[in-house]
């Protein structure tokens, strides 16, 4: 209880609330700009949060992401351009509702159900994290190795597109994590004589490159249509209570499923939205209306994408394993502040864990007034020309990449990985698994080598502790399921050709 009060005091301090307000406005702006994602908002915030104490840093990230995920609904509903990937699942319904003159209803639903989803996610986070942390205290290197491997496996197989490309992305991240002095033997690896590379590939410049520079490059190489809206909006809260009563089962289901998907390492708000939209259609009494401007899918997926944000912090805080690309960035930030996320955080700095819970509540409550203001001002937000914004983002990224180590080498890393991230996305390779690989690389290798030494090189030793055995078998089953599925698919595809021959 003392820790909870201490955490609440840290979050509710006036300067922290000011940070949350500013971060909230920033998140709404970035999320509302078509083409700029919640992950990019986090990436751009990191250079600033790097210089803050832990609680304001975390508060800024939590608030900005909650706002950005909601704000992604605005261009989706008004322009048919999802502001963030998390809004893509229901963009068709939302836009058609606007065309039918129901813009207020769909924007209000996006806002209200985002808040509800976010609050439920926060409750589940607050209940689940301490219990899991207690359980995780008994974990050894074997359990951590399997857990991290399971996390990476989920990131590979849940990500959209080909599993082989997802795996390549993870492996690139893991390979980048091996650069520098090896932690077990102290031997330099892949440094090519560079003193700068001895410390490894700096995480923050890498992440800014992959998530922000690649976005700038995508904008520069893509079509540049200007987006404008001319109308004003009325009362967006009218009719929301009736919607809640009508779809309360949907809201409960999507909040729980969304949080659960957030907890799964590697799966974030976008996947939560797609899954719950599909579930809503499956269980709906009017599935034929989906895609024609029906609010039900918006309610479900809008609830789930914000709920998943809280869920993603469960594995991040308890095991140090990110639940999505945003928490991957957060873990990097925490490590740099010498606050290693994991079960011992609950023992050593419980007020920090409780501060995260309280931050989620406050951020989601703040979303209601700030989101309302964002809807009212959205016309003006869209008027900010991206021709001006993108060069400024570019310069901001360069300063951020420099600021971490006060080295121009960071800008070089950012540029190289920005081009790599852009090229990867152009060719269907998801980039989020690469960041998870980079964050988890050292953890996986350290626990793998430690476990190998403990087991004297016997791989069966990885299955001798009960929890490790369960985690190991589950991870291997996931791989078997995917590989068997792929082989069957190839076999079926080649069937007609075989019979033709």
């Amino acid at each position: 209880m003392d820790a909870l009060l201490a955490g609440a005091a840290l979050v509710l301090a006036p300067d922290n609330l000011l940070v949350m307000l500013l971060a909230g406005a920033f998140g709404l702006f970035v999320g509302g700009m078509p083409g700029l994602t919640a992950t990019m908002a986090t990436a751009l915030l990191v250079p600033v949060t790097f210089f803050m104490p832990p609680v304001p840093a975390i508060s800024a990230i939590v608030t900005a992401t909650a706002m950005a995920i909601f704000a992604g609904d605005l261009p989706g509903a008004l322009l048919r351009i999802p502001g963030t990937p998390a809004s893509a699942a229901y963009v068709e319904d939302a836009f058609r509702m606007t065309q039918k003159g129901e813009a207020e209803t769909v924007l209000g639903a996006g806002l209200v159900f985002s808040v509800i989803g976010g609050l439920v996610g926060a409750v589940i986070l607050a209940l689940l994290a301490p219990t899991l942390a207690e359980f995780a205290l008994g974990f050894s290197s074997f359990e951590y190795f399997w857990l991290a491997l399971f996390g990476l496996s989920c990131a590979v197989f849940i990500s959209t597109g080909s599993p082989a490309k997802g795996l390549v992305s993870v492996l690139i991240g893991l390979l980048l994590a091996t650069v520098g002095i090896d932690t077990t033997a102290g031997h330099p690896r892949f440094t090519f004589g560079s003193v700068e590379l001895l410390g490894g590939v700096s995480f923050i410049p890498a992440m800014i490159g992959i998530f922000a520079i690649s976005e700038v490059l995508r904008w520069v190489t893509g079509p540049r249509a200007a987006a404008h809206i001319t109308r004003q909006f009325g009362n967006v809260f009218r009719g929301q209570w009736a919607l809640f009563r009508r779809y309360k089962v949907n809201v409960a289901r999507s909040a729980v499923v969304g949080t659960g998907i957030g907890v799964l390492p590697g799966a974030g708000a976008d996947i939560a939205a797609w899954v719950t939209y599909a579930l809503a259609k499956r269980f709906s009494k009017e599935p034929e209306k989906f895609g024609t401007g029906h609010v039900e899918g918006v309610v479900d997926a809008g609830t789930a994408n914000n709920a998943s944000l809280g869920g993603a912090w469960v594995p991040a805080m308890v095991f140090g394993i990110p639940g999505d690309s945003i928490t991957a960035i957060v873990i990097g930030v925490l490590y740099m502040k010498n606050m290693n996320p994991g079960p011992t955080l609950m023992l050593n700095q419980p007020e920090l864990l409780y501060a995260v819970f309280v931050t989620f509540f406050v951020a989601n409550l703040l979303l209601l007034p700030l989101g309302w203001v964002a809807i009212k001002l959205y016309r003006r937000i869209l008027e900010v020309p991206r021709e001006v914004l993108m060069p400024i983002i570019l310069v901001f990224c360069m300063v951020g990449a420099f600021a971490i180590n006060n080295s121009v080498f960071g800008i070089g890393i950012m540029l190289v990985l920005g081009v790599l991230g852009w090229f990867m996305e152009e060719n269907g390779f998801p980039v989020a698994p690469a960041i998870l690989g980079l964050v988890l690389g050292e953890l996986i290798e350290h626990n793998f080598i430690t476990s190998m030494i403990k087991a004297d090189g016997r791989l069966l030793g990885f299955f001798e502790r009960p929890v490790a055995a369960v985690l190991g078998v589950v991870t291997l089953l996931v791989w078997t399921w995917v590989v068997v599925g792929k082989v069957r698919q190839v076999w079926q595809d080649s069937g007609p050709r075989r019979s033709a021959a």
Partner: protein
Amino acid sequence: MRVNDALLGLVLILGAAAVAFQAQAFPDLPGQGFGPSLMPTLIAAGLAGCGAALVVGGLRRRDGPWITPGAWTRRPGQILDVALVLGGMVAVILLWQRLGFVILATGLTGLLISRFRGGHVVGSFAIAVVAVLTIDWAFRHLLLVPLPQGPLTGLYW
């Protein structure tokens, strides 16, 4: 720019071979048959496996050219935009200490804004000056990041 999966797979296999080759030079841990080379070797094996899968998949589905340039490569204006963004960043890296942040960033931002807006040079550079000085003030004064000032050292805050 889209590259056929088979070609990407081949590049991955070659890259994996280079990683594995370099890793074999790393020493083992004392008294163990493994060491710093183990993880890179496993990663290389994984990359080679994925590369092989991409080669097979790419050859099976090959119905277009090996490399398909993006639509932007057919618009000379956009090629110049990309060159300015990438070249500008390389120039910033090379001249960072010599010219300092404010000069480089104002030059790059002003150039890019005026290019993207199709003119308005004075207005674009005015926006660039305000934006860069704000960033410089925030990072150098509030966050105490030692951004280099180059020839302007001592001339402003």
